[in-house]
């Protein structure tokens, strides 16, 4: 197991860090992720999916439990550098507003080491459905979907082992969504890239993922292989799946 999460819990203080009462976001969550696997995490809004994502990235620490990558703690920057990258839900705040798309794409490589010429960048942008004219644009000149595609290109640029996609394709429209899903599938085969795909879109998760995990109220309700999706046991998972079909 490359990524191992052992019974983590996370709570936040309700009224800022001086507030008394704590709000439990995650309770005793454990999961494992193999190299090259794509794991879908599905849940309602407010179920703690995004918090789980931030903990997996090591940008926040759990109150209890541990998260290890290859046996080393994920909170260590050297461990995550170049191995795990991320595409966030909020595309507006994920690109530095003073950077052009070119600079944004090069930013992660500064830390990982590696080169990317204009030709490679153009190719990368083409794969996400943009063209080279975007290289010199600033984030505010991009529409929501375009900015999100730049974020995806940036995450792919350093060829990490795992990309965490936190609602990454929900703001894209149908045709581009499909294009990005195809791109992710293709990358998975060429580079053995794996994904942790946090989403509420069950259809997209079913398309991309090998395994799907249902989260509710900060707990994992059920984990199921995608091929066995029709045999889910819990009521909650059934309800979610049913809503999509109707």
């Amino acid at each position, binding site marked *: 197991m490359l990524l191992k999460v052992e019974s983590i819990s996370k709570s936040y203080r309700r009224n800022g860090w001086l507030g008394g009462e704590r709000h439990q976001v995650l309770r005793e969550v454990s999961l494992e992720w193999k190299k090259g696997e794509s794991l879908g995490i*599905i*849940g*309602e*809004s*407010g179920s703690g999916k*995004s918090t789980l994502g931030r903990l997996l990235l090591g940008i926040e620490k759990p109150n209890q439990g541990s998260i290890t990558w290859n046996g080393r703690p994920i909170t260590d920057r050297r461990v995550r550098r170049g191995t795990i990258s991320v595409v966030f*839900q*909020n595309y*507006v705040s994920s690109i530095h507003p003073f950077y052009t798309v070119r600079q944004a794409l090069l930013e992660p490589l500064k830390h990982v080491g590696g080169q990317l010429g204009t030709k490679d960048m153009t190719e990368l942008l083409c794969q996400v459905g943009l063209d080279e004219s975007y290289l010199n644009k600033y984030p505010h000149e*991009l*529409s*929501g*979907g*375009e900015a*999100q595609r730049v974020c995806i290109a940036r995450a792919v640029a350093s060829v990490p082992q795992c990309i965490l996609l936190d*609602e990454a394709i*929900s*703001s*894209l*429209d*149908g*045709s*581009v*969504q*499909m*294009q990005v*899903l195809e791109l992710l*599938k293709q990358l998975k*085969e060429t580079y053995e890239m794996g994904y942790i795909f946090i989403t*509420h*879109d*069950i*259809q*997209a998760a*079913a*398309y991309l993922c090998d395994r799907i995990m249902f989260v509710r109220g900060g707990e994992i309700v059920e984990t199921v292989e*995608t*091929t066995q*999706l*029709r045999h889910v046991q819990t009521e909650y998972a059934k*309800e*979610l*799946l049913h*809503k*999509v*079909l*109707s």
Partner: protein
Amino acid sequence: MSLLEVEHIKIWDGRTGNVLIPDSSFQLSQGECLAIVGESGSGKSLTCKALMRLNRPEIRQSGRISLYGVDLASLSDKEMRRYRGRRMCMIMQNGMRAFDPSRPVGAFLLEVLSIHYDWSRSEMIASLSTAMISVGLKNFSVVMERYPHELSGGMLQRVMIALAIVMEPDVIIADEPTTALDAVTQYEVVEQFVHLRGRIGSAIVFVSHDLEVVRRIADDVLVMKDGVIVERGKTSKILNDASHSYTRFLVSSKEALRRYYMQLMEGTDVAKG
């Protein structure tokens, strides 16, 4: 007479002279629901903001947008502000940025209501709480005390919809209202929109890229590509038998996902990969 008439609007960037929307016209009659679909960057949000006069100052627009025959461009900023919210209500794509970050959601909502209505505090709270419960926000008092950053995107979206329910505007402009929501809430919110139409007869401009949602809610569909309206027609016609090749492409790419999912659920063998 049409409720909302948009005639030959042209939108361009005042600094660079780039034309973003060359010429678009459409009408909306009372109680109608018009969906605008198109890929990102095709000018859907821009059109919505133009209707509300909310585009940034450097984005210029010309043409005529009239609500009940009143040209919106002729209104002063102050009059326009009275229109926004009461007559035309916009539900934004990004819930985080639509609320005042420095105050609890409740204080913000009450302020909006007190500007448009002379209700007492208890009346306002009563109507807000019914609206919030109807969009699936069960613990009303908790939501009211929270600051926007403490609520998830989906919850904020629902708060906005609840506010629209209370305001009962003539036109609701919903810019990707269900994008940030999960399947269950999305389903509930779309139901809310359907109810909203039945109850107060609001016309809805519904921007979405989710064709399933569009199929559920819209009477008419407008397809945009690169700022140009390529097709307009009845929902069933556009989604089943589109005449423009771009529309067919939009429909087919979403169908692929759906078909894969259906296969998975029905248990026929699916080739993995």
